[in-house]
């Protein structure tokens, strides 16, 4: 049989994890099986190895039985490897004389036959026993953390995270793609369920960001490149040309008033296309920074984005001595160094045109919820008056929930906020128009503080709730009362029959989905995405703002749909996580780096393989050299070395071979 070095004394522990493992794996049997394996001095099964008594058991055994290797078979090493290494170290051993076996996520939870699952647990345990005998003592490397933080995205999540960090004295770079921070929240009229005005609660935070000495705000900018590792990231930011010198612009907007275009005539993005703006404009009155910008696509001084200098430039005249307008401005690239990054890039609303039966884009009186937010807003294009595209005031309004949510043909997830914002809009529309209002819903989801009460309130206000997903919105009337109206055809599922309801206005409660470029952002920051395209958290319960890349955190709707309070809470959590690293001052790096063995023949074939240029060639010794600081431990060079002269800590050839051998040795 396989020989084990004489001095190897292994302690083995199999965890029941309550019933999680024990219900599918016969833990005592695994323990007694392992006990007979060569090198094993002691083998135990225990209810909860990760508990304090469990860890203390390991420490006690190490001393009592003079163990020099420890193997724990329990859950995933991604969850508790660190816990047990710490326990082993506390017992006086080098923490790397430990190996962990995953018999929960990879065994008991995914199999249905107790015999097979037990056999698999034995095989995995046996492999670990063989492997751990080859383990070496290793030292953890400490790397300092740069205390500066980058926050990407200036919606409410990014704003809150940046302010939290800045208030704690950290230096923050806030990068926002749009000309102003504020995100979607800046467009909302009121917020549910308290109905406080979105601008009233957001604007003060926006101004604090603009004025904070610890925050460098770069609006109209994008991150284009990220390098480095936790604690030491190098980031390239593209600052797009707004043709205005931000330092010189005072936000007086005299240029806007004096633009050659007397009337605004271009689509106003902030008002969802319901209003107009000029080529030189400020996105909205409370925009932060209070700096105008010029749209080269429509400005007369440009033609198709290229400077022609053919306009009279009344704006420049109006600006006068301030000289803030700079038509020659080019985009700039700035490199910054930070230790941690918070990604809060938000969401986009579902494109209602994708659900054809609801007629968005076909019937002018079909609106998206975002458009209605602007329509009921006092600072919106109609100053808060609800006037339809055809100039009428609606007497009956249908609000259709779940547009682009809970639908396998578009987005299958529940967007979480639509029920509540639909009810908010129902309330506001009722208040503004006195119209008859119908909500068409599949299920009302109101699970938040004061949310169910808000639903009650709406019922009391006489808003109709019809349980049924609308089949179609049509413009053909079957009865005189339907003529000239939009007709909603729906099954009232609680009444049990089909209804046709004529309305003047249809509001589509569009869902939330990942930003169109979420995949690019994910690659940029080395994150993962869930199948639906939102950024993936490290653990759905226990690490909701961490990502799989250390030092990179996520907050807000880029991780999944959520409302404002949850977003703010999450942004605070992300800021706190960043501060943990900053205040600790250093990070520990897994010592899984590669190193060159003396028998390197100098063939150089490993040099181009390393994406981090950690391998160089020493002309004096004619051998490859690996810079431990640059090596990230992927092991690609190890498996590619033709002479087998590169090895990797924690993943030595003999360790892997013995694992293969062990796992198959039954």
């Amino acid at each position, binding site marked *: 049989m396989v020989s084990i070095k004489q001095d190897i004394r292994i302690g083995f522990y199999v965890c029941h994890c309550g019933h999680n493992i024990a219900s599918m794996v016969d833990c005592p049997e695994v323990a007694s099986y392992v006990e007979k394996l060569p090198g094993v001095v002691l083998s135990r099964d225990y209810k909860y190895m990760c508990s304090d008594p469990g860890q203390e058991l390991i420490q006690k055994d190490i001393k009592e039985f003079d163990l020099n290797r420890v193997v724990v078979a329990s859950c995933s090493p991604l969850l508790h490897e660190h816990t047990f290494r710490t326990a082993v170290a506390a017992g006086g051993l080098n923490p790397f004389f430990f190996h962990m076996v995953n018999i929960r996520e990879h*065994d008991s939870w995914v199999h249905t036959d107790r015999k097979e699952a037990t056999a698999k647990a034995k095989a995995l345990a046996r492999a670990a026993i063989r492997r751990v005998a080859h383990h070496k003592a290793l030292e953890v490397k400490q790397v300092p953390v740069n205390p500066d933080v980058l926050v990407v995205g200036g919606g409410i999540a990014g704003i809150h995270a940046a302010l939290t960090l800045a208030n704690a004295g950290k230096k923050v770079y806030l990068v926002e793609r749009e000309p102003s921070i504020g995100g979607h929240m800046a467009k909302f009229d009121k917020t549910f369920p308290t109905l406080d005005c979105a601008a009233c609660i957001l604007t003060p935070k926006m101004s604090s960001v603009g004025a904070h000495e610890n925050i460098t705000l770069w609006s109209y900018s994008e991150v284009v490149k990220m390098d480095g590792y936790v604690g030491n990231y190098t980031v390239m930011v593209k600052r797009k040309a707004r043709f205005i010198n931000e330092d010189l612009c005072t936000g007086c907007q005299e240029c806007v008033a004096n633009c050659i275009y007397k009337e605004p005539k271009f689509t106003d993005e902030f008002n969802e296309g319901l209003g107009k703006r000029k080529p030189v404009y400020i996105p909205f009155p409370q925009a932060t920074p209070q700096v105008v910008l010029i749209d080269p696509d429509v400005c007369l001084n440009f033609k198709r984005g290229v400077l022609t200098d053919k306009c009279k430039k009344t704006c420049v005249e109006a600006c006068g001595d301030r000289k803030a307008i700079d038509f020659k401005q080019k985009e700039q690239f700035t490199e910054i160094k930070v230790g941690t990054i918070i990604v809060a890039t938000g969401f986009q609303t579902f494109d209602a045109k994708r659900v054809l039966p609801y007629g968005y884009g076909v019937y002018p009186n079909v609106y998206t919820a975002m458009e209605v937010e602007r329509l009921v807003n006092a600072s919106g294009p109609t100053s808060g008056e609800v006037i339809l595209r055809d100039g009428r005031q609606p007497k009956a309004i249908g609000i259709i929930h779940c547009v682009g949510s809970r639908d396998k043909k578009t987005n299958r997830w529940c967007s979480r906020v639509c029920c509540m914002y639909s009810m908010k809009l129902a309330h506001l529309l009722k208040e503004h128009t006195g119209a008859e209002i119908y909500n068409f819903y599949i299920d009302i989801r109101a699970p938040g503080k004061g949310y169910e009460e808000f639903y009650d309130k709406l019922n009391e206000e006489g808003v109709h709730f019809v349980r049924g997903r609308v089949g179609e919105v049509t413009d053909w009337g079957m009865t005189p009362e339907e003529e000239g109206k939009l007709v909603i055809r729906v099954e009232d599922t609680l009444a049990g029959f089909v209804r046709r309801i004529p309305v003047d206005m249809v509001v589509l409660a569009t869902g939330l989905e990942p930003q169109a470029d979420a995949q690019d952002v994910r690659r940029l920051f080395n994150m993962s995405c869930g199948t639906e395209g939102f950024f993936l958290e490290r653990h759905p319960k226990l690490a909701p703002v961490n990502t799989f890349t250390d030092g990179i955190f996520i907050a807000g709707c880029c991780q999944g749909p959520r409302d404002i309070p949850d977003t703010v809470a999450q942004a605070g959590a992300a800021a706190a996580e960043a501060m943990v690293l900053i205040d600790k001052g250093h990070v520990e790096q897994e010592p899984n780096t590669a190193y060159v063995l003396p028998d390197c023949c100098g063939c150089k074939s490993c040099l181009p393989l390393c994406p981090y240029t950690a391998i160089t060639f020493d002309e004096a010794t004619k051998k490859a050299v690996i810079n431990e600081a640059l090596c990230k431990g992927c092991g690609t060079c190890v498996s590619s070395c033709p002479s087998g002269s590169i090895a990797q800590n924690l993943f030595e050839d003999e360790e892997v071979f013995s694992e293969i051998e062990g796992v*198959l040795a039954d």
Partner: protein
Amino acid sequence: MSELTPPSPAAWTPRIIAFFCNWCTYTAADLAGVSRLKYASTTRVIRLMCSGRVDPQFILDAFRQGADGVLIGGCHPGDCHYVEGNYKMLRRFQLLKRLLKDLGIAEQRVRLEWISAAEGERVKTVVNEMTAQIKALGPLGMPQAFATWDQEVSELARRTGDAGEVESQEPVAAAK
């Protein structure tokens, strides 16, 4: 190419060695567990930091030690935690497949899959698919084959009266 093995016994279940990268596929397998997806208990996962660490020798050794199949899981192209380790693996994998073919090992016995951390469902599908395919192929039985060959060679040597030089160096005893 024909396989080396006799038809499979009824009660036999395949043994598949899976080399999963730490960042994507291992995490996906964890997710499959957390989601309580159910799949065949045929795989034994060996965790590596990156699919780029999978040495072709690991695969050959797995077969030698008695594996019926080898599954390698890495991040999707473009998503590698180490930029491009998965591409390096892909390159090697193509060459290795040719080698295995020449050795008479059926193509379906090795499989390279890109499974991201979010694709727990994919782990289940791939494992089940591969299990079914290998079940159809039957056991590979390399250790037994080695034993037979060794026996033949010893026999030959005994007959030529020079037994000492060709004694088996393979740890065939590892196979039960």
